[in-house]
């Protein structure tokens, strides 16, 4: 994946960042460069060899490899080559991804303003130090009537005048008086007239200095002598002109002084401050943009990886589906082959049985004929009667074999199924054991197209099986007939249900097989003959069984519309 990853990075560098001095590296976790690309020459970097360590190329990474965190960012790193870069390092599972790009222009843009600000800060520090030094100067000889706004004589007066500041002193009641000669700009301050007249001002007279004065009082009460500043604030004077003020509080020989200066900065310095603010805002904005750009680059890569992963998953899923389909087709093919084999076997058995039965029938005809003649000639003869009885049973069996093998050509005709069922139920009622009840619910007199004798045989076989299943413990034989709409065509549903022990699950697949029987005296042809007749009558048969609860056979025939009689 790393090769593909490298290719994507390379393409992005060439196409998206073609005019930028940007370079990327993929290293192993120990920092050996494996892939790289971008504009190395524009970053004044040599091309790496096959085993170059990233720290040899990007010296600032010394000591950081292996990177412990997932991500590192650097701004304005001035390399020994003289190029200033920004850098991002991402730690992956088995690699480090490093992107660097030229930030010299950004740096050169930021440097002048920082330079001005730092130089200004140095000047301010110096001024504060000078004010603090005043504490060492004796002001005992300045005890004139300060509260009348008279300037203190001597050094202090000259000093404050030179600084062009307004100096107020706070008395024990927390009121302010003008301490020094008023500066020319005093009228810009609120209540300047009161100050000039020597009237005291309450401590909350400067709303913008509220918190600052409270802090100053705390410091004064604690005996702190250091100067501290309020920071800059902008105030509009009565002409609407914006003015820049700064206040400092200090204690000099027990005097609590508030020094207010106007336009603490020269116009160009003020401009520098504003510029600095804007540049800083731009700088952070650029940093955010760079970060976003890199994150976007990373996002693109992640999206590509996710897409590729999804594609692979999709292909994998498709393969799984195909494999399942093939397996199912294979199973179906095996089942179809098995069915074909079974069908061919049945066909062969049927053909064989039919042939044998036909010949056997001819032989039986002779036996029956000559036995009947012998009885006529010799009168009552028990042995001949037994031979004749056995011959009749043999003929019935042969008839069933012929039915099974479809070799008894019979013609189909409209048959009222309910009539046939009624006949069978009547016969059954006469022969059922006492502990087997019968319930008949026939709700249709519709016709089906079939051989009535064979349908008789179907109903009889199913009923016989049903009551035989209940012979041991008794039960109820239920016979039902009703119409059903299937595929928008009328059908007759014949149900024959017993409450016997049910058919074992392992035998269900074989109950319609010819010659399969669980009865000691059964021939195994009953259900296979039933199935054969039903199919020949365009019907089909279903069976449901539940262990201990019984078995239900459902036989469905299409209803024969008597209006079709002419088509027969």
């Amino acid at each position, binding site marked *: 994946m790393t090769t593909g990853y490298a290719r994507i990075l390379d393409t992005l560098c060439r196409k998206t960042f073609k005019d930028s001095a940007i370079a990327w590296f993929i290293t192993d976790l120990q920092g050996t460069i494996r892939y790289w690309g971008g504009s190395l020459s524009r970053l004044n970097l040599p091309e790496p060899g096959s085993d170059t360590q990233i720290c040899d190329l990007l*010296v*600032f990474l*010394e000591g950081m490899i292996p990177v412990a965190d997932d991500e590192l960012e650097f*701004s304005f*790193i001035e390399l*020994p080559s003289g190029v200033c870069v920004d850098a991002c390092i991402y730690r992956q599972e088995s690699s480090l991804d490093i992107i660097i790009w030229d930030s010299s222009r950004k740096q050169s843009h930021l440097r002048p303003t920082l*330079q001005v600000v*730092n130089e200004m800060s*140095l000047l301010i*520090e110096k001024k504060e130090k000078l004010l603090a030094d005043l504490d060492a100067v004796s002001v005992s000889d300045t005890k004139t009537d300060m509260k009348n706004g008279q300037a203190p004589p001597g050094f202090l007066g000259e000093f404050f005048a030179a600084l062009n500041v307004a100096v107020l002193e706070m008395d024990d009641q927390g009121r302010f008086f003008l301490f020094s000669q008023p500066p020319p700009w005093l009228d810009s301050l609120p209540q300047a007239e009161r100050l000039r007249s020597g009237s005291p001002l309450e401590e909350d007279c400067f709303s913008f200095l509220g918190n600052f004065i409270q802090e100053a009082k705390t410091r004064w009460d604690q005996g702190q002598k250091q100067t501290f500043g309020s920071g800059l604030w902008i105030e509009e004077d009565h002409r609407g002109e914006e003015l820049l003020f700064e206040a400092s509080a200090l204690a000099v020989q027990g005097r609590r002084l508030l020094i207010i200066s106007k336009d603490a900065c020269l116009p160009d310095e003020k401009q520098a401050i504003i510029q600095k603010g804007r540049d800083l805002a731009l700088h952070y904005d650029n940093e955010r943009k760079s970060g976003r750009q890199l994150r976007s680059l990373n996002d693109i890569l992640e999206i590509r990886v996710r897409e590729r992963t999804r594609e692979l998953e999709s292909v994998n899923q498709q393969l799984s589906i195909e494999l399942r389909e093939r397996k199912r087709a294979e199973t179906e093919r095996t089942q179809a082959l098995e069915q074909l084999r079974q069908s061919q076997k049945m066909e062969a058995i049927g053909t064989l049985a039919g042939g044998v039965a036909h010949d056997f029938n001819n032989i039986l005809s002779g036996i029956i004929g000559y036995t009947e003649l012998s009885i006529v000639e010799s009168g009552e003869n028990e042995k001949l009667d037994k031979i004749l009885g056995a011959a009749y049973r043999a003929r019935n069996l042969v008839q069933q074999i012929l039915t099974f093998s479809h070799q008894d050509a019979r013609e189909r005709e409209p048959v009222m199924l309910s009539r046939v069922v009624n006949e069978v139920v009547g016969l059954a009622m006469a022969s059922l054991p006492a502990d087997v009840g019968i319930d008949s619910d026939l709700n249709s007199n519709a016709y089906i197209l079939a051989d009535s004798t064979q349908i008789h045989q179907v109903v009889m076989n199913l009923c016989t099986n049903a009551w035989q299943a209940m012979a041991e413990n008794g039960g109820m034989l239920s016979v039902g007939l009703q119409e059903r709409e299937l595929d928008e065509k009328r059908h007759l549903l014949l149900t024959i249900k017993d409450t016997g022990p049910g058919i074992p699950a392992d035998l269900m697949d074989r109950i319609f097989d010819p010659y399969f029987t669980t009865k000691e005296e059964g021939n195994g042809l009953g259900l296979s003959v039933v199935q054969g007749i039903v199919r020949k009558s365009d019907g089909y048969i279903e069976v449901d069984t539940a262990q201990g609860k019984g078995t239900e056979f459902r036989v469905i025939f299409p209803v024969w519309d008597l209006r079709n009689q002419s088509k027969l």
Partner: protein
Amino acid sequence: MTKKKICLLGAFAVGKTSLVQQYVNSIFSDKYHTTVGVKIEKTSVDVDGEAVDLIIWDLHGEDDFQHVRLSYLKGSAGLIFVADGTRHSTLATALNLRQIAESSMGSLPFMLLVNKADLADQWEIDDEVMEDLRGQGISVIPTSAKTGQSVEWAFEELARKMVGK
């Protein structure tokens, strides 16, 4: 060859860049030139017969606008804190930075250089304060990037500490 990363930290305008330039390139300029970001220098030093490559990170000064990013300290083998002898507040900044670095990086070999020894008459940091710091186990060295006083020795002493000699 052994490679070691050193970071220089301190308030603005204390002379960090000047110290590095004096040590690496033996040059000095009176003109204050603020550092934006980080300036990387590389030099070799012989520590009792062992050559050690020093990767020197000259970090921008700490002030209200630019704070030292702790991530820049990663991988450092040693730290140099710089104060300006003529500005007492810069000592507090240096000691504060030392505390921050120690909480982030653990205990690393370090030196405290009190720079601008050539302006000794304007110093606000007196010998008593420095002795007090030395009493706390801190190597405090007055230096002058302008004259080169103790600059080379300070870097080599730190290199010696870093390689454990």
